[in-house]
């Protein structure tokens, strides 16, 4: 081999991901010259770069929590019991879009959507049946619900109470992150001001009555799905985190009273080390933000506790079995990055809802990492690698730049209103697609290594009968309940919505009369008005 051949490389520039970081041939201690020992520290010690707990997964493994929900409550209840039997350790509820956007299943806008992206929940009756045979006092439940989070949390508490559970001992998470809805996920209903009031009402209610509940899950996942780079995901999510902490402080709350109940949610892409670095950088950044910016004193306020979902966008419709490998790498990134709970996608999530067989493979992937790979046996096993520590710094620097940019533009709400954040993400998404189309970025089975062979995938379908069944059920409910009582409580909801009072207690009262998600949301729409997104294109 000649000298030039020895020195030549496959590409002019190596990058972590599109719009990501440029990567050098090799890293040495010289790349970490500015890094101090206290920036890395030890697991369980500020700034928690390596892990929030000193024992990492040697103490307790992460919670294996598969996001699931489809059709009617009966079908989803069966799936939950199946997952539980397979060794899943936490539940995660997917609600169908009408529930998320405040419509009952019989609303004209719900046509075609009932039971499709999640389970149909119209009233407390549905919530009660969703958990039939599952003791809510003993399990931990995460609910992906935002604009209607207050109503759904009220229903969950009421259902738990009917089972005899003490709400003060309930474990779980309500997503309750409206800011990222305006930025990326798009299941908002009301404008930012009333929405932030609902968010903070939930957080302060949890401080008082549900101390073991995560009152918010500040989410970068959906921004990443919408196209954000790893650094954008980290920066914009923490910018939102700052906005929520500030909103609670503005409400008169003391930072250490509520911050320990704040949690986070991120995506894991396939670029293994970039993702590990992202999680480590996020932990360090949040700890410093809480201590330095907000003067938190309780270490628990400084700990970034987070859930990870392997990223759905990275999975391909083409050659779907390859997705099992992608999910494995992504889940490994989450575990090496020190997540507290993890959802692994089923391999044909790009095509349809998964069957039992497909979710079993997804769950087994986590169990193999936990029990066979050895990576859970020591804390932060890749920490100290020249490249990883350099990349952790790099992500921190870039993410900090985004946070500063947002706050120079007047804060998160202003940056959403002017479309700055949405435009940054849309532009990253476009650059990604351009790079794939130009073959600068290889997606196996999509733009390279294509083959004609077809995999026959079994998928789960939700038919039109689900919609009919759910609407009939709703009609029966409305006939059978005390409608006078419903109207009275709805008028109290209206009064409280228009006042400064915390909305949670009256919502708990309302759901117990079997007032529906749509009925309560209609009252709130009337008082708060509806949001229209700014056009950013």
């Amino acid at each position, binding site marked *: 081999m000649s000298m030039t051949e020895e020195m030549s490389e496959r590409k002019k520039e190596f990058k972590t991901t599109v719009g990501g970081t440029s990567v050098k041939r090799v890293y040495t201690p010289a790349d970490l010259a500015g890094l101090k020992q206290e920036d890395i520290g030890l697991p369980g010690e500020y700034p928690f770069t390596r892990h929030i707990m000193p024992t990492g997964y040697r103490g307790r493994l992460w919670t294996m929590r598969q996001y699931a929900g489809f059709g009617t409550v009966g079908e989803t209840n069966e799936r939950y019991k199946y997952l539980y039997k397979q060794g899943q350790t936490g539940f995660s509820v997917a609600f169908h*879009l*009408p529930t*998320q*956007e405040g*419509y009952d299943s019989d609303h*004209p*806008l*719900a*046509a*075609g*959507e009932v039971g*499709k*992206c999640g389970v149909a929940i119209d009233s407390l009756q549905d919530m009660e049946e969703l958990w039939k045979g599952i003791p809510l006092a003993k399990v931990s439940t995460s609910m992906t619900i935002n604009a209607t989070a207050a109503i759904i949390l009220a229903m969950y508490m009421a259902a738990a109470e009917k089972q005899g559970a003490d709400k003060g001992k309930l474990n779980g998470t309500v997503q309750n992150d409206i800011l990222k*809805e305006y930025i990326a*996920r*798009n*299941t908002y209903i009301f404008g930012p001001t009333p929405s932030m009031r609902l968010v903070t009402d939930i957080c302060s209610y949890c401080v008082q009555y549900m101390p073991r509940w995560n009152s918010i899950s500040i989410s970068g996942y959906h921004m990443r*799905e*919408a*196209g954000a780079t790893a650094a954008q995901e980290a920066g914009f999510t923490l910018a939102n985190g700052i906005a929520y902490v500030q909103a609670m402080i503005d409400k008169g709350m003391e930072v250490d009273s509520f911050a320990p109940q704040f949690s986070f949610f991120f995506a894991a892409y396939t670029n293994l080390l970039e993702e590990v670095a992202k999680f480590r950088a996020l932990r360090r950044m949040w700890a410093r933000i809480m201590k330095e910016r907000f003067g938190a004193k309780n270490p628990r306020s400084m700990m970034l506790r987070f859930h990870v979902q392997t990223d759905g*966008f990275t999975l*391909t*419709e*083409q050659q779907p079995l390859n997705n099992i490998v992608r999910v494995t790498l992504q889940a490994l990134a989450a575990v090496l990055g020190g997540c507290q709970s993890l959802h692994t996608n089923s391999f044909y999530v*790009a*095509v*349809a809802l998964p069957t039992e067989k497909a979710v079993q493979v997804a769950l087994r992937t986590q169990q193999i990492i936990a029990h066979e790979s050895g990576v859970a046996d020591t804390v932060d096993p890749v920490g100290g690698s020249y490249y990883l520590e350099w990349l952790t710094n790099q992500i921190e620097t870039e993410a900090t730049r985004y946070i500063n940019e947002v706050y120079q533009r007047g804060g998160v709400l202003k940056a959403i209103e002017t479309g700055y954040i949405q435009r940054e993400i*849309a532009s990253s*998404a*476009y650059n990604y*697609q*351009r790079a*794939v*189309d130009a073959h600068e970025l290889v*997606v196996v089975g*999509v*733009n390279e290594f294509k083959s004609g062979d077809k995999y026959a995938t079994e*998928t789960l*379908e*939700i038919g039109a009968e689900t919609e009919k069944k759910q609407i009939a059920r709703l009609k029966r409910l409305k006939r059978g309940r005390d409608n006078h009582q419903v109207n009275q409580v709805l008028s109290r909801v209206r009064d409280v919505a228009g006042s400064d009072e915390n909305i949670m207690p009256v919502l708990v009262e309302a759901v117990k009369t079997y007032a529906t998600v749509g009925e309560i949301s209609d009252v709130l729409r009337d008082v708060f008005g509806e949001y229209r*997104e700014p*056009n950013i*294109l």
Partner: protein
Amino acid sequence: MRNKKIRVLIAKPGLDGHDRGAKVVAQGLRDAGMEVIYLGLRLTPEQIAEAVIQEDVDVVGIDCLSGAHMALFPKTVELIRQKGGQDILVVGGGIIPKKDIPKLKEAGIAQIFGPGTPLDEIAKFIKTTLEKRGNDKKD
């Protein structure tokens, strides 16, 4: 040959919020020389059809990832045709099971572009279909 720029309207019917694809396609078609109106999301078929007629577009792209496409796509085409948009080319995108595609085509959606479709393929389809229609009219 057409002299004026092709006008495209992109919209998301239904409650689905996954707008990454719709926004990427809007930017892609604009870069391919078309005039693109991005109408946004959470729209009813009525609202889309109304806008299509008012904006006098040549092409409409509708997109849905929630699984509600069978309830929304045919209805949207039907309303566009009812309001007098007989010649408007309608294309669709999103997560659409293969078995639904023939039914959607029968309902008047000229083509479905699934995940992973290169942007150039969409632009080329629109250009050649409109050119072919223009030539057919001359004949």
